[in-house]
């Protein structure tokens, strides 16, 4: 069906050939310069209301034929657009002014339409390439977003190589549904699944269950190459994103990659060299003979331990295992070759890139190889075709960290290993068993593998044909779509020599995932100009998205020595998970522009999905917006405001019910080779409804001081109706949980953005942006009793969904202050506010200092790392006595927990972090002809953090990217990066 439709669409485009226009024309030439008089190349010059266009050459000159009374529109990214009435004769000289307020920046408003920022009804955050990766490059794309999106709460799950971050736009969108935004790259909907490698078979983190969210997988959007990205637009809520349908309930991140530019082919080679180091170590307990003995209560054992300590001490064999495990300095390199060029009909962008990074733990690391080719071609003056292709191969060795019930992860093993234990291999390379834990961490690191390896191919097609053209009306047909396909291989090998493999005698976990996503949009856009003051843009179209996900996971144990192939195992269990969906949408959207000052937008999308209870029913998601530019209307003519706009927007969206929540399934439950079925612990509900969402956003944007100081202030009220909760049901029903439409949620928030140019002289330019934002969530209605979820129970601190309370509140026991079994609110995961500032100071157009500072004020984590180290008697301050009460801190904390208090685990995870800082020097006067420019730079990524948080890093999530981020259970420590960069332009 899909193929047929694309064929038909292409045929239509080819059949409708353009009609030529005849008018009185003359040739005109001109020159475009910047405010300093320097010529500007590659500036677009268009004859207004025609498709006739050219670009300036390297001297800033252009020539074009124009109707005698025509107008030229001169545009370029970063400069304010100028309209020039064609003079009777002579050369035109145009001086472009920098568009500090970015008012002329074009922003996406629909599936096939866009509008200038000055007329936008929503607050749409944009991130340029320079902001994304031009300061201090991060390891993966998702990490590069961190701290850069106002209105977002972004949190890294762990420091493991290969990424894995949670991005939540404007608060809690859903508890069990999708909380992550939709990523669209050049019109292709990207899969962002996090697929577990099945480590639970070894760690038993989710004891009793096979499926675990505690395996610390990466999110697949990490595969994307930040270097290829031109810019990113973020539609944060339904008021902007409704037109994308149900998959956009948590917002949309629209990514545009670089396209070919007309002119001489530019070849650029960039090389990064650097290192990664652990951001922070917790330290280890310094044992004494006395404290070594106190590890046991048995007199014989005490004597033994004391002797062991004395021997180790006199032999100089007291070790800092934490440092030994996490103290590796990883070497990083990244090479990018890109080419960019084209003529007036065809443009291309090509890049080939490879990065290879070691981790802070030996034998961990990340490798990514990417090829991209973007082609644009004008078939005729009226038909344009654009093709994007990207191949990525990535491989991440992520180690074994985090929660665990078998004592096998690096971190849990470390937590019970004192400094006088001997874990190093003997002269034959044989590792001793760790007498203090279930595993020898050095042996585990040396022998195990946990790798995620991806081959991904993404391609998109964009066809645009002008099918009708008259003096007042232009109609275009736009077809856009693509496929995103990847193959993910997860390999987790635990050879039989490992201490903890004495029962299983080797475990090999092999996962194979195939994911295919396709989508297309066919739309018609009509632009109807009634007069210079009134313009209508009508768009309508159909969309379809499909997904097909298939995950096979095989766990083999009793492995033949040295073998990892699963058929070399003595026992094999297998799991398969498949997910398939098809969504279809029909949309119409009308945009009205009055006087280029008042913009009205209205649209509706009808959506249906195989994920819904009723697969045939179309759900309607409307949106509407209005923006009034008071300065353009001439209402504010006092000269103080350069631009003042009031705006409001409203939209609705919905999140799908979780896959399979309609049915009560029977799962395999075999015994002694006989197949059996047992009811799933999750009960189904045939009447489940999707979560509906409505968002109202209002704001004011203004700029003063010649556009050198710009403000964007938005308030939003996002309501989620009938949100889905995996409600705990009485287990005597046979079920533990069941999806119910449990109630309503609300998110309210404020976003303030300031862009400024504090200094602008011939030799010094300082641009600065400051963003401030916060979100407050509240459960406004709950039809079931409060639900504890997302952590390890109330004695350790847990989230609780409760009417009238914040959706992210953390509750727990608080004895002896409260009654023994009374739950009290101990904190809230939501930050009180966040701020960031991005600054660039340029000196003499050559030396550029850029930095990004991110401040998260408050917001709590559930930190269980210290408790686990206390229970293992290895925390650094175990013997300290901070409060001077003569009870050592370790036993005191244990005592507090045993006394029934979870207070100590709920910890402020606020921080101020210099996320990125980079210093670059550009050499553009090089005598040799072959090299046009050289840029060298040094950068630091996440190097400086100020926090009172006691764990490895305030950014952590034992449970991955879902609802409950911020639970800290001995994670992979976060790392900091430094790199040196050379870029050569040919």
């Amino acid at each position, binding site marked *: 069906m899909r193929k047929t*439709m694309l064929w038909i669409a292409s045929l239509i485009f080819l059949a409708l050939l353009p009609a030529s226009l005849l008018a009185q024309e003359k040739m005109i030439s001109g020159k475009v310069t910047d405010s300093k008089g320097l010529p500007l190349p590659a500036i677009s010059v268009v004859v207004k209301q025609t498709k006739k266009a050219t670009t300036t050459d390297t001297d800033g000159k252009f020539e074009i034929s124009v109707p005698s009374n025509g107008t030229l529109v001169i545009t370029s990214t970063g400069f304010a657009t100028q309209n020039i009435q064609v003079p009777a004769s002579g050369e035109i000289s145009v001086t472009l002014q920098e568009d500090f307020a970015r008012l002329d920046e074009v922003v996406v408003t629909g599936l096939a339409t866009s509008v200038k920022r000055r007329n936008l009804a929503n607050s749409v955050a944009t991130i340029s390439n320079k902001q994304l990766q031009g300061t201090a490059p991060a390891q993966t794309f998702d990490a590069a977003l961190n701290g850069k999106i106002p209105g977002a709460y972004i949190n890294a799950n762990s420091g493991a190589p290969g990424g894995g971050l949670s991005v939540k736009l404007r608060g809690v969108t859903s508890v069990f549904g999708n909380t992550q935004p939709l990523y669209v790259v050049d019109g292709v909907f990207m899969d962002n699944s996090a697929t577990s490698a099945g480590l639970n078979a070894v760690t038993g983190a989710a004891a009793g269950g096979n499926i675990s969210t505690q395996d610390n997988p990466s999110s697949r959007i990490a595969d994307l190459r930040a270097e290829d990205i031109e810019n990113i637009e973020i539609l944060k809520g339904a008021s902007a994103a409704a037109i994308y349908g149900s998959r956009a309930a948590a917002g949309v991140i629209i990514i545009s990659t670089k396209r070919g530019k007309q002119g001489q082919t530019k070849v650029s080679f960039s090389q990064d060299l650097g290192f990664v180091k652990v951001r922070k170590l917790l330290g280890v307990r310094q044992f004494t003979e006395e404290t070594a003995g106190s590890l*046991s209560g048995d007199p014989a*054992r005490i004597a033994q331990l004391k002797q062991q300590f004395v021997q180790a001490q006199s032999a100089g064999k007291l070790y800092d295992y934490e440092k030994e495990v996490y103290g590796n300095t990883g070497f990083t390199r990244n090479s990018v070759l890109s080419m960019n060029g084209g003529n007036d009909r065809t443009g291309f962008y090509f890049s080939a890139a490879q990065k290879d990074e070691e981790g802070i733990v030996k034998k961990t690391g990340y490798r990514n190889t990417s090829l991209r080719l973007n082609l644009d071609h004008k078939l005729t003056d009226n038909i344009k075709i654009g093709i994007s292709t990207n191949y990525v191969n990535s491989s991440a060795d992520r180690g074994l960290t985090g929660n665990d019930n*078998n004592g096998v992860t690096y971190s*849990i093993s470390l937590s019970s290993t004192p400094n006088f234990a001997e874990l190093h291999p003997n002269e034959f390379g044989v590792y001793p068993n760790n007498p203090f834990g279930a595993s020898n961490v050095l042996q585990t690191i040396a022998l195990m593998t946990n790798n995620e390896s991806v081959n991904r191919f993404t391609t998109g097609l964009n066809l645009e044909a002008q099918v009708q053209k008259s003096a007042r009306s232009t109609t275009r047909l736009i077809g856009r779509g693509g496929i995103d396909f990847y193959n993910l291989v997860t390999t987790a090998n635990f050879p039989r020599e490992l201490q903890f493999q004495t029962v299983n005698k080797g475990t090999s976990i092999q996962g194979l995932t195939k994911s295919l996503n396709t989508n297309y949009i066919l739309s018609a856009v009509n632009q109807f100009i009634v007069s210079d003051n009134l313009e209508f843009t009508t768009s309508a179209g159909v969309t379809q998205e499909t997904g097909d996900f298939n995950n096979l996971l095989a766990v083999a144990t009793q492995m033949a020595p040295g073998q990892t192939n699963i058929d070399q195992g003595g026992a094999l269990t297998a799991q398969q998970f498949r997910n398939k969906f098809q969504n279809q949408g029909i949309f119409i959207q009308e945009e009205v522009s009055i006087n280029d000052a008042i913009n009205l937008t209205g649209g509706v999308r009808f959506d249906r999905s195989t994920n819904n209870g009723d697969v045939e029913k179309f759900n309607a998601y409307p949106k509407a917006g209005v923006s009034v530019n008071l300065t353009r209307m001439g209402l504010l003519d006092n000269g103080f405001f350069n631009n003042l706009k009031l705006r409001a927007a409203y939209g609705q969206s919905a999140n799908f019910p979780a896959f399979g929540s309609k049915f009560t399934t029977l799962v395999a439950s075999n015994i002694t080779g006989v197949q059996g079925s047992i*009811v799933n612990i999750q009960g189904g509900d045939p009447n489940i409804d999707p979560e509906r969402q409505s968002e109202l956003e209002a704001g004011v944007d203004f700029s003063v001081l010649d556009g050198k100081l710009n403000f964007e202030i938005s308030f939003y009220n996002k309501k989620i109706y009938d949100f889905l909760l995996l409600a705990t*049901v009485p287990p*005597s029903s*046979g079920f533990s949980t069941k999806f119910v439409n449990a109630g309503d949620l609300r998110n309210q928030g404020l976003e303030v953005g300031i862009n400024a140019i504090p200094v602008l002289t011939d030799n010094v330019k300082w641009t600065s942006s400051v963003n401030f934002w916060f979100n407050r969530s509240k459960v406004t209605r709950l039809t079931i009793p409060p639900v504890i979820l997302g952590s390890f129970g109330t004695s350790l601190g847990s989230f609780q969904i409760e009417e009238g309370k914040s959706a992210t509140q953390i509750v727990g026991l608080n004895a002896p202050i409260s009654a023994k079994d009374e739950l009290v609110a101990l904190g809230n995961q939501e930050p009180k506010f966040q701020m960031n500032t991005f600054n660039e100071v340029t000196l003499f157009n050559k030396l550029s200092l850029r930095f990004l500072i991110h401040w998260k004020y408050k917001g709590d984590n559930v930190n269980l790392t210290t408790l686990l180290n206390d229970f293992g008697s290895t925390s650094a301050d175990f013997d300290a006595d901070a409060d001077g009460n003569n009870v050592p801190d370790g036993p005191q904390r244990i005592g507090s927990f*045993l006394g029934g208090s979870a207070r100590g685990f709920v910890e402020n995870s606020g921080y101020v972090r210099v996320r990125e800082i980079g210093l670059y020097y550009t050499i553009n006067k090089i005598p040799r002809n072959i090299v046009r420019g050289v840029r060298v730079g040094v950068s630091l990524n996440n190097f400086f953090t100020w926090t009172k948080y006691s764990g490895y890093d305030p950014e952590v999530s034992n449970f991955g990217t879902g609802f409950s981020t911020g639970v800290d259970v001995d994670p992979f420590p976060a790392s900091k990066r430094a790199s040196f960069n050379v870029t050569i332009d040919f």
Partner: protein
Amino acid sequence: MKRIKNHGALILVMLTISFVSCKKEYANLNSPTVEDYLKDASKDQLNGLVTGALSGMRNNEAAYLDAVSVIGREIYRFSSADPRFVTELLGSESTTLNNTGFYLTNPWASRYRVIKNTNVLIEAATNSTQVSEAEKKGYTGFAKTIKAYELLLNLNLTYNNGVRVEVSDPNNLGPILDYDQSILAIATLLDEAKADLTGSSVVFTLTPGFTGFSDVAGFVKFNRALAARVAVYRKEWAAALVALNESFFAINGDFNLGVSHQFSTGSGDQLNPAFFPQDQNGEIRLAHPNYATDILPGDDRISKATLRTAAASNTGLSSNRDVWVYTSSTSPIPIIRNEELILIYAEAKIKLGAFPDAIIALNRIRTAHNIAVYAGAVNEAALINEMLYQRRYSLFFEGHRWIDMRRYNKLNELPIDRPGDDVWSAMPIPSTEN
């Protein structure tokens, strides 16, 4: 120009129509659904539910054994990942059993999950047109027996707090009954099952753990063995003897004759989670130190607690013996076996005043375990103590000690290892049941 515009619009409309008519529905791709089974289940589908129940009975079996054995001071369970084995279960300092604790909620939910499966089996078999009446009775007799056993395990945990017996409709659960009502309901369920099985036809395959008990007659014997256990719990001594007579009780028979949970390395199967190798660190089960100090000299049951190369300690607890009851990852865990039946016989006989019969049974146990015949006082109190000693060592880490001491109000005789520890008499009802 206008013509072209109209064509464009027309084609767009056609596209939209063809698109709208192109609809799909994906069924559940990953697993069958209960809704399907309830319509008209085939014999194979019903048999799958039987196997599923047998397999599911093992879920969290080790968690159950750990919990009752730790509270009953049979074992220590040390875990580097979870401190609650040595805190809440032993009542250290001011900690108490928590109604959200994993040691309660996990086994409790797993038992009710099997009960759900048996209820689905009963309903599916009843609705099925593909099996005969006799075959239906075979399914319901099986289902009710298993259901009764699973309810009993939960009642063992919550004791006076009771269990919920009527749970077939998840949206309309019955009340939580008190202990006497609960145990009566379990006894009644076993009797109903026996009635169903009489004249039934068994067309399903049981596991090797049911060898000798997988036909109708054999399964009834298993059912009656459980009934005998329930009868002594209810202090129905005469009824216990009646049930024993219809069970596989054999005073001179093999102690291990009986029904057990099986484990294997097969696909989708489980390994015995109650097995830990000896001399491990981190995750370990140790015999309580007084297992070795209280044992009679020469008693061969000391082999269930082997000496470690080094003692293990945790928060003031220490032991130098590993639990060594399940000695491989595929060792079976008994559900009920002849050694227990012999001791049930002894108990019922003591309570009915038939001391010589009881002593015969006790001596059968003693001699088999290499200790001299009983020479103690012949009165009820002394013999009950002797019977409890034999149960302690014969059924070590099979989940009996705590329940036995509770039945005889002797929980205060269990050792307190650290000042401030408590011996609990019952677990609370899980918070999620309220």
